[in-house]
């Protein structure tokens, strides 16, 4: 394993944390949008309480992944930023609207205003994961290529590569995963039984959606990379375990299984396209920055982790321990 492989692994770790933590924040917004029934206000309050103290920190994982990418794999970052300018810009608009609306909402502007910001927050939470998934799907399908010459025009260069059924299937799959994670976590956040049951039902529903979207993705995956059989089996096993745990109301076990399931999916993608960072031609090794940069960044990551993990542990212990 080379230094570049280690850094690529670190990027995947950061993305993994972003998916498990930031992804669940997006999922929370989705459930805010679909809050229904007599308990819809308590559902929304629960979501807000769960996200409030941690979402700023959860969000930084994405920045870390981006920074590592442009520092350690600059040609990949440049190619990605050129080819996926449009969907990435849309993701950014989603992130801006979602983050600001979440804070504006809790600013005491009265019920009506709170509702309006809540709507912006929820819709942005619904759309942004789809676009993030589209970006991942486009990378996986090998459509982030060098600029074609001669220039074939705006649409074929900047729109067509990501406007594909496969990319959008991955987008919807991402949304389903985020909603699934959020619902599973919320069963543990809920204090009252009825609320817990609400999110248990939602978790099971979202889990079914994850399976349907995964099947659809596989159907369309002649555009995508091949995932190893062992990993597929493992993902399937934890997926079924998550269902079983939800069914038996063993919420702690469900949380572990759900997080493992989504993580395995992410690593499955990473391993499937290894050694390519951007298939079909840009490998991790070829995109890597000089060794001195990689060494220093890994050193910084080590030192940073020494500060970061105890701090994160403290944050989650203060707000998430029962």
């Amino acid at each position, binding site marked *: 394993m080379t230094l570049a492989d280690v850094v690529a692994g670190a990027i995947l770790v950061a993305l993994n944390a972003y998916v498990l933590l930031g992804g669940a924040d997006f999922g929370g917004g989705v459930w805010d949008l679909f809050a229904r029934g007599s308990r819809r206000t308590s559902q929304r309050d629960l979501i807000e309480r769960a996200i409030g*103290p*941690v979402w700023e920190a959860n969000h930084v994982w994405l*920045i*870390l992944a981006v920074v590592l990418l442009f*520092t350690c794999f600059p040609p990949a970052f440049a190619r990605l930023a*050129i080819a996926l300018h449009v969907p990435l810009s849309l993701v950014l608009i989603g992130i801006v609207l979602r983050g600001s609306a979440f804070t504006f909402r809790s600013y005491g502007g009265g019920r009506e205003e709170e509702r309006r910001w809540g709507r912006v927050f929820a819709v942005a939470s619904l759309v942004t994961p789809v676009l993030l998934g589209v970006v991942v799907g486009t990378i996986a399908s090998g459509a982030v290529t060098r600029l074609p010459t001669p220039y074939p025009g705006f649409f074929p260069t900047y729109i067509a590569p990501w406007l594909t059924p496969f990319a959008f299937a991955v987008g919807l799959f991402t949304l389903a995963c985020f909603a699934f994670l959020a619902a599973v976590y919320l069963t543990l956040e809920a204090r009252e039984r009825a609320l817990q049951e609400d999110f248990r039902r939602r978790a099971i529903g979202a889990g079914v959606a994850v399976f349907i979207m995964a099947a659809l993705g596989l159907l369309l995956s002649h555009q995508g990379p091949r995932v190893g059989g062992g990993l597929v089996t493992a993902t399937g096993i934890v997926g079924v375990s998550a269902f079983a745990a939800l069914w038996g109301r063993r919420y702690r076990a469900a949380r572990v299984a759900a997080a493992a399931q989504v993580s395995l999916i992410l690593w499955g993608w990473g391993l499937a396209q290894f050694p390519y960072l951007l298939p079909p031609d840009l490998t991790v090794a070829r995109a890597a*920055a000089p060794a001195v940069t990689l060494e220093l960044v890994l050193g910084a990551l080590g030192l940073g982790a020494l500060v970061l993990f105890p701090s994160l542990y403290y*944050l989650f212990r203060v707000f998430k321990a029962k």
Partner: protein
Amino acid sequence: MSDLLAARSQMAVSLAFHIVFALIGIAMPVLMVVAERRWRSTGDPVYLDLAKRWARGTAILFAVGAVSGTVLSFELGLLWPRFMELAGPVIGMPFSLEGFAFFTEAIFLGVYLYGWDRVSPRAHLLSGVLVAVSGAASGVFVVIANAWMNTPTGFTLVDGRLTDIDPIAAMLNPAAFPQTLHMILAAYAATGFAVAGIHAFILLRNRTSAFHRHALAIGLLVGAPAAVLQPLAGDIAARHVARHQPVKLAAMEALDSTRAGAPLKIGFGVEIPYALSLLAFHDPHAEVKGLDAVPPEEWPNVPLVHFSFQVMLALGSYLALVGLWATWLVWRKRDVTTERRFLWAVAIATPCGFLATEAGWMATELGRQPWVISGVMKTADAVTPMPGLVVPFVTFTLLYCVLGAIVTLLLYRQIVRSPGA
């Protein structure tokens, strides 16, 4: 509008927007911590009220700062992919460190905002201190990366590629110290005076409110020393620019031709003889390089750079004078909260620090043009090949205008609702 101009405009709008929230994010935690510390030591509930209200304001400003910062980390690539491809391995280091500083800031801001009843008093105060320290560290790391664009070091340029990369040497580039010092002081001066100014304005109408008197005092405590020290930091920065970025200095001073004993232009055609040489090199007869040192195609937009620089100088000097006035009043044991003329001066200072920072930033960024990395890469060669960049420029500008208006409205409402307003 050309794609290059659209990309530059979008970057300018994004940075101009983010910079305000970044400054507040650096300095506001200090004010919160001081207020909380005073509440813990005096038991005066007004300080607790102040700390909580400031924390509330900081929450919203930090959130907008965080998302606009996220936008910037992507925009570096979306707009300038060739620049990032070239520079990433050299200046990625401060960005990586900034990532961890930002993590610390976000984590402990969460503890501070939501943890009033969940952690011990000591842990709560310490969380606030950590937010303040990591906020300043974030600012330092980001400005170091910008300083490298002004005075790039830590590589050898061979056929347009950077070899022999030394990221540590790049972080220690000559502009790093003067620029970070200048920017961190700007954060404290701008935010401190903005807070003091708002409360001074209210005190002019309601002179007895303990809430606003305490707020004014803490705002001045943070803002005034920084504003008084800023001219010294500015002097260090100016002498640095004279040595390492002579074209930028020539543009700032609109100095056409290289000359010894150069005068300082202070606007409206007034010149102080020898003053520029004196300021730039601490020697009245020193030679100062003019714009004629490089061909005209390598000149920045001289009128704009000159104007921005003058605006920064004027506003910064005003803040420094008000800061000195405050120091004098405190030294003479006079009550700063009842001197009406002083309160007016502080109220007028409310926006000055932010405007000065924006102007100073324009001077340094526009003054580097046409280069994105001085002497290494032209801005025009860094831009994305994607056409139609006017569309994202207009979109993000509208988005930021709306956000700015909403934040202003929400903060205004909070100020109006404060006790005694």
